[in-house]
């Protein structure tokens, strides 16, 4: 064991009255770490945090800095561990400074006044949380976000090695969220042990080194954000469909909920759709058609293409090629097979250069009546042409050969509901 364990819990059970909300939790937290606790509503995140801080009785092993929590006097605990609650009642008009100064009670005799050093520390905490200008304001006049920063400032002024945060940014706007969480991360970098409960999984992934996912009071995953925030685990624990990816700017895992609202069952005809797109032109289209219940395939997409990532996220089979290279013959063969199999082909107008021109030309072999060209408003075939006119000509040829051209998703839907003369009767 290299770093000391600030908090060590083994087989910890905790709850209210006789009902255990946290069950058999074993985990430990080393110095200089920032851990996020995540899980759905009512999963026991706050209860776990309060069990750590001893305001909820627990059974099992719970040690702070190697010493059983039960052996701490209240004042020792107040010097070892700071806690930021989700919210706190404000029945009396204390000033902001008065509330933050309460952080120093644990370090001061009840028969003595607070020392100048205590005031200095509290003023620094107010600076760090950006509320120095509010120090003489009555707490009852503060907004939710300002009050939350007062609670954070008070915990900072306790000067503890361990900080427990219960949704510390739930009332904060974006810039204050990142200010506070950056501050927490820098505290962790200087040796503090920070544990926070988070609802915003992206914020948790962005700032924490480690995530503990709990469900029904039990730990179901405890690892790096990238390993915890997988679509499978999220679906399993939260019951929500998400896509995850590494954010290109931060390099951290991020996730987006999938819009599964308005999901309809598969239509009874023209169910198999081949979407030809590229350069991100098909992202929304793939989501839209997938939500409408169509069985999709996609082609031909470079592995760096956003459309490719969308197809992967939606589990849509797709013909993938390496970026910036000629389309290999076997990929074109696959495309031809799909062109024959698909009930309808939706061609999303996308940038075509000499590299991907062969795919567009291959469409000439398909029945034009089964092709729908999606040309969004404001776009022209010329604006998609990066092949000295050959691409624009190919698009136009398809339309004059009988392909239907539409500017809207609903237009595509309308076309998909129509029959063509060449359609074969459904096979039994």
């Amino acid at each position, binding site marked *: 064991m290299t770093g000391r364990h600030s908090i060590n819990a083994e087989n910890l059970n905790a709850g209210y*009255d006789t009902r255990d909300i946290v069950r058999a939790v074993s985990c430990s937290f080393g110095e200089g770490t920032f851990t996020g606790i995540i899980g759905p509503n009512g999963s026991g995140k706050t209860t776990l945090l*309060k069990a750590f*801080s*001893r*305001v909820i*009785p627990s059974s099992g092993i719970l040690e702070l800095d190697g010493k059983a929590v039960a052996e701490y*006097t*209240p*004042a*020792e*605990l*107040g*010097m070892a*561990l*700071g*806690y930021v*609650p989700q919210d*706190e*009642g*404000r*029945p*009396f*008009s*204390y*000033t902001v400074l*008065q*509330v933050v100064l*309460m*952080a120093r*009670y*644990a*370090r001061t005799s*009840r*028969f003595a006044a607070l020392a100048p050093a205590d005031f200095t520390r509290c003023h620094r905490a107010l600076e760090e949380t950006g509320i120095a200008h509010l120090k003489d304001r009555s707490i*009852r006049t503060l907004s939710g976000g300002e009050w939350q920063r007062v609670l954070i400032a*008070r*915990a900072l002024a*306790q000067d503890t090695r361990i900080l427990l945060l219960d949704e510390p940014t739930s009332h904060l706007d974006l810039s204050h969220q990142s200010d506070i969480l950056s501050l927490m991360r820098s505290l962790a970098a200087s040796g503090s042990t920070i544990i926070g409960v988070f609802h915003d999984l992206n914020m948790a992934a962005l700032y924490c080194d480690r995530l503990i996912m709990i469900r029904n009071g039990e730990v179901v995953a405890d690892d790096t954000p990238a390993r915890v925030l997988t679509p499978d685990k999220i679906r399993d624990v939260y019951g929500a469909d998400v896509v995850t990816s590494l954010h290109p700017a931060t390099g951290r895992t991020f996730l987006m909920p999938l819009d599964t609202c308005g999901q309809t069952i598969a239509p009874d005809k023209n169910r198999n759709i081949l979407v030809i797109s590229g350069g991100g032109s098909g992202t929304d289209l793939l989501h839209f058609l997938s939500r409408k219940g169509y069985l999709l395939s996609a082609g031909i997409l470079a592995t760096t293409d956003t459309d490719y990532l969308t197809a992967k996220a939606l589990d849509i089979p797709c013909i993938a090629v390496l970026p910036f290279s000629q389309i290999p013959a076997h990929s074109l063969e696959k495309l031809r097979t799909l062109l024959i199999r698909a009930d309808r082909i939706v061609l999303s107008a996308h940038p075509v250069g000499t590299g991907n021109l062969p795919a567009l030309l291959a469409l000439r072999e398909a029945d034009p009546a089964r092709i729908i060209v999606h040309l969004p408003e404001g776009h022209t075939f010329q604006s998609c042409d990066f092949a000295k006119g050959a691409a624009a000509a190919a698009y136009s040829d398809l339309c004059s050969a009988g392909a239907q051209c539409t500017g809207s998703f609903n237009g595509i839907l309308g076309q998909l509901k129509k029959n063509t003369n060449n359609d074969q009767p459904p096979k039994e």
Partner: protein
Amino acid sequence: MTRTIPILLCMTAAAILTVVLCTFIGPAGFGIPAAGPGAADIIGAIRLPRVLAAFFVGASLAIAGAAMQALFRNPLADPYILGTSAGGALGASIAIVLLGGFFVPVFAWVGAVVAILIVWSIAGRQGVIPVETLLLTGIAVSFFFSALYSFLIAIAGQNAHQIIFWLMGGFWNASPSDAILSAAVIVPCGLLLFFMGRDLNALSLGEETAAHLGIDAAKARWAVLGGSTMLVAVAVSIAGSIGFIGLVTPHIVRMLLGPDNRVVIPASILAGGIILVLSDTLARTFFSDLPVGIITAFIGAPFFIWLIYQRGVVT
């Protein structure tokens, strides 16, 4: 912050002045009554003990009220909230009906303490008690006790008048021993609550918050309740249940000096004493010795309503 000390000094001066002046005011007008063998007796044996008892009872009710409001995180809590007033009234009623008015203070004190003990034992059955449970138990026990003494009033016949006068509170029978007793209680209990000031501050934001700030919340709560109960039980035994002093005084103090209980507690001693001495002087001088509870409620209730609407005291 910087004006706390000057205000406290002014209040101390005002308290001394009030006690001295009110000792020399009576139905006979201001000044030392005409020389004679009775003059020294009126001042020394009747007026001074009465003024001092009123001062200490007012102070007791005010700091107990401040402590209860902080503990229950509720600016509308009053010192009788856990049943002391109803318990004291029941004890006094029993003494009046059964013993013909002897031992009323003793029975009132016992009744107040018994009421609190019942509340504690009911509410404390499940180990950690939320203050809300304590509060509701106190209200329930109060109603039960008031049913009992109302029954005694109903069957008391001509004693009913005596019980009702006692319920409204007053200092007709204040003796030197009452002044000494109330002083003897307020010194230790006042010091206790003063040194619990920071615990009260933390508790007024929540018991969990107090624990997170390094306060022994359970111990602090019992110390505050114990000290307040002693103060209120003795006050009730001396003067009956005088309303509004304990509720309104802490609000006045907080308006002047802010909500820090390390300041509110000592300031409440001075303010509660001044207000009750003035009210009692008013009662005995101009209203032929009305129960002082009528005066405090008559002035206190409209003042409190004004306070609620002016300052937004209620959350």
